[in-house]
């Protein structure tokens, strides 16, 4: 708990120093801070609006697949194989949905922690996994879409291999620390 609150304080301190120190020092350097801010902010606004269509396309496809039972089907398909390899099966739904959605995987993590308890080994593995993996498909779709790239080359395979490494490393490291 000590470390926990220490981390909260540190991350807020970092946030405040980003948002406080930058304008202050720029102002001291005689930069027209507010005009500069709005100029950059306008660009941010345009980027945010521009990605909406790509966002809708990705989100609808992902949620259709989820509602149709796609992730559940993948779980049934993969679980015998992964079980043989010693993969902890409660982590499978999280592993499958993690590349697609951050909010959905957070709710699965909450589910695992609730079912097994926050101190259980499997909960720690799941939490570690969340930290060591990313929403690869989501990032690739939105980032590339923003600049109109349709041929993504090796970005998806590389991202997924990195994610798989994160999953395996999370399981092994937790096993070792626990």
């Amino acid at each position: 708990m000590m470390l926990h609150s220490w981390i909260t304080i540190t991350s807020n301190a970092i946030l405040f120093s980003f948002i406080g120190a930058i304008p202050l020092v720029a102002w001291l350097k005689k930069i027209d801070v507010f005009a500069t801010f709005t100029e950059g902010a306008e660009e941010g606004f345009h980027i945010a609006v521009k990605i909406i269509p790509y966002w809708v396309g990705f989100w609808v496809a992902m949620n259709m697949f989820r509602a149709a039972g796609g992730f559940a089907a993948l779980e049934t398909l993969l679980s015998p194989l992964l079980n043989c390899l010693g993969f902890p099966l409660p982590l499978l739904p999280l592993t499958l949905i993690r590349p697609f959605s951050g909010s959905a995987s957070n709710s699965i993590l909450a589910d695992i922690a609730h079912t097994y308890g926050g101190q259980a080994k499997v909960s720690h593995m799941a939490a570690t996994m969340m930290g060591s993996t990313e929403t690869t498909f989501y990032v690739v779709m939105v980032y590339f879409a923003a600049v109109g790239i349709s041929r993504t080359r090796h970005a998806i395979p590389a991202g997924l291999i990195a994610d798989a490494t994160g999953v395996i490393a999370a399981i092994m490291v937790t096993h070792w620390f626990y």
Partner: protein
Amino acid sequence: MLNFIWVLLIVSSVIMSFVNGTEAAVAASIAVSANQAVNTAISLIGIMTLWLGIMRIAECAGFIALFAKLVAPVMEKLFPEVPTDHPAMGAMILNIAANMLGLNNAATPFGLRAMEELDKLNQHRGIASDAMCTFLALNTSSVQLIPMTAIAILAANGDSAASDIVVPVLIATTCSTIVGIVIVKWLAKRKLFRIEPAGTNDAA
């Protein structure tokens, strides 16, 4: 690849909905999720506008150039085709830094800005450059110093020492970052993914 995955997700959902008898749920999810996507995007407009405004000030004040010079040796190795003083470098560094610190809302605008700047250096319209792929690999395998959400979820479920996961996360994420960089550099040179000179087609 992107087109294939998108079509695969949608078509397989339609087929599975009939097999599993989940047509009603799938039909309902279409309208709901389209709406959700726009709402999420709109709720991000404010924070994106703010952070890119702050970033412009940091650029003008010379902070980003200073920071870029500090990490230049590493960045030049990772992105040999991007000049050190290019705005893409600054945006990528900020994106990676924000990711490491767990400032996810700040990371997205920096990342999108970085992609726009990288696209200015891109020789092939519509095709990802090596630098873009490397940046995304780095982004998706990002080193996380503070896994705040995961800690909060464990703590909420009765773990009094939830922040103990910091060290395991650091080790696991370092592994995935190293593998991500090695793999992305290796795959870039494979025949399947290489960009051929203009006029020829390659599979992707």
